[in-house]
């Protein structure tokens, strides 16, 4: 496993470099883009002197590379993501992001818990029914759900379950509240508010999981040990659960990371449509009101999560399929 260790190390060394580039890029476009938070905050009645003063107080009148230097120094030495200007004035950025992350996490986790068992079940079902109409039909149904964007399915579901049937509460977020430090958040996981976002986030992922499971199941079904298991008279259920499923599910590890990424992007729409106070909605608000430090912190955190998830996926691939040489395909 010498190769794997070196490979992992090489990939991990890449992380800070990527984050440095990301932070610089983000910093540049926020600072050079027109419109600044102070002017936006001042609104209609702008007093140039006041705006100048506020900018001075916050160091926004400094040259941009000095601002970047100060920001990075505070971040690296004190773990300080800065201060919000327009979203929640004078709050520490981390205090704004942390509770919202915990809110966004709840539908995401429930979605994963729904998507994987459902995808596995559909995939194995389709593989066992290969050659009948049920195979393409079951996969196709979920493929349709995967193709249609969240921002189309979600309003339609709201129309049916909230407006027409009235089974689910009107949009919003609620549930028992817990204190998580800077402020308290609602545990929507214990209320009916979780149902719509979790459902909508989970459905697009099912098709990918189901197709992968179907493919691996089909290849496992052809193995000798499955024939042996059948030949010695084991009930079909045992054959599938013990001999087929166990070997067919290993490659799924690689999908977990990908699903996390999809969930993160989906959060932007579920939270905007349903009015959930999570990081997706925060991101849209921060970008629109140019809350520099909030944007920077969000992008950096998400980028870090992306990079790490991608590395974990790649390492998982090499574990599952040792034939993949660690980036050594150059020999031609």
């Amino acid at each position: 496993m010498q190769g794997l260790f070196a490979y992992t190390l090489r990939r991990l060394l890449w992380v800070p470099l990527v984050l440095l580039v990301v932070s610089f890029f983000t910093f540049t476009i926020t600072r050079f883009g027109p419109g600044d938070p102070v002017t936006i905050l001042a609104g209609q009645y702008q007093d140039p002197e006041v705006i100048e003063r506020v900018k001075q107080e916050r160091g926004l009148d400094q040259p941009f590379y000095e601002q970047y230097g100060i920001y990075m120094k505070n971040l690296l030495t004190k773990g300080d993501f800065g201060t919000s200007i327009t979203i929640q004035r004078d709050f520490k950025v981390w205090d704004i992001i942390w509770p919202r992350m915990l809110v966004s996490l709840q539908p995401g986790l429930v979605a994963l818990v729904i998507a994987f068992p459902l995808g596995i079940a559909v995939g194995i079902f389709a593989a066992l029914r290969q050659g009948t109409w049920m195979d393409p039909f079951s996969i196709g149904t979920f493929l349709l759900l995967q193709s249609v964007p969240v921002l189309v399915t979600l309003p339609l579901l709201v129309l049916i379950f909230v407006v027409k049937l009235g089974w689910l509460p009107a949009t919003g977020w609620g549930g028992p509240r817990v204190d998580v430090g800077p402020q308290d958040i609602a545990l929507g996981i214990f209320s009916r508010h979780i149902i719509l976002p979790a459902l909508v986030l989970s459905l697009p992922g099912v098709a990918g999981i189901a197709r992968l499971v179907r493919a691996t199941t089909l290849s496992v079904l052809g193995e000798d040990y499955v024939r042996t298991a059948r030949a010695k008279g084991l009930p079909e259920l045992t054959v599938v659960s013990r001999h087929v499923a166990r070997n067919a599910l290993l490659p799924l590890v690689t999908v977990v990371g990908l699903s996390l990424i999809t969930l993160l992007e989906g959060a932007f729409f579920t939270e905007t449509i349903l009015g959930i106070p999570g990081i997706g909605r925060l991101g849209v608000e921060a970008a629109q009101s140019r809350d520099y430090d909030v944007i920077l912190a969000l992008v950096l955190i998400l980028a870090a999560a992306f990079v790490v998830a991608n590395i974990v996926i790649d390492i998982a691939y090499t574990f599952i399929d040792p034939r993949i040489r660690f980036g050594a395909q150059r020999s031609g």
Partner: protein
Amino acid sequence: MAEATRELPAEAAPGLAPPAASPWRLALRRLLRKRLAVVALVLIALFYFVGLFAPLLAPKDYRDQDLETTLQGPSLEHPLGTDRLGRDQLSRVIWSSRTTIIITVATVVTGSLVLAVGLGLLSGYLGGAVDTAIMRTGEVFASLPGLPMLILINATMRDKARRAVDWLEAHLSTDALGFFVLLAVLGAIALAALAAWLLAGEGRRSGGWLGLGFVAAALILILWSLQGVFATPGSADYFLIFGALSLFFWVGGARVIRSQVLSLRETEYVLAARAMGASTWRILGSHLLPNVSPIIIVGVSASLGAIAGSEIALTFLGVGVHDPTPSFGAMIFEGASQPVLRNHPHLLLAPAVVVGLLIFAFNLLGDALNDVLTPKAR
């Protein structure tokens, strides 16, 4: 391609095709045998037809407001009803298709075709420092969180882009713009001729003019629709969106093409071409490009749905195309609010159904092309 294959079968597809039919024709035949793929193709063709000819097909202008007939349900005069400003919903759907088409075509041409194919070929064939530079840059882009970055770029750079376009329009009279469009059309024809010549290789005698004409006609149509972009008030938004999307959509394609080129450049026919003194550009253009073109088509068709979805998503989040320029994203946003859903669900249904069907069709076609063009994957 067909002629070339008949004369030099070994060059076009080593050992794959019987001499009678080119691999392309075989692939087309296999594609048309898939019922779902044909349905998807028809849907997409219909959508593009409607979008391209929106100025002729839409019963009303997308800006026409009638404040006396707001929020109406479907009627004979307004088959899909009217929105909160009394604008004809059907016309807005038709014009929105045009926005989607402009964004997908522009992003595919710049992001997928120029950037992905160009950089992928160069990176794979040249190797060394060029390869490292391109692939490391790609790696940085691939590790950026796509949607948040797109939101950020569009939210912050919008006024800049708008000012740039305003400057262009102020400094160039409409005549000059028309001249540029003419220039672009001529350039497109020249490019198409060049591409056809490169693709044909040496084996060509007479055939292929049909293909060339087809490519040229398609390009002219595309440019004609792009020329209309300048006339709409939101042109800066278009440039910003497809520019930002191209930045993020080239990496995947470039990687796949590079890895294919890595193995192709060691094949006998490339070695032979090099031994005969062919230039780098000739090898890239007439030996490698035709052999990676199936992957290019699969890649492009797979990304179409994502590109169309991205524009709609950005507009939905308020950082894409802005009112009054029509977009499905804005229509869905207006239709998705609770009070509207409660009282006027028709405002959501029309754009939602069109978008759902379109992106599903894109994905079906992408899947089918993947099956047809990369037989090893089956």
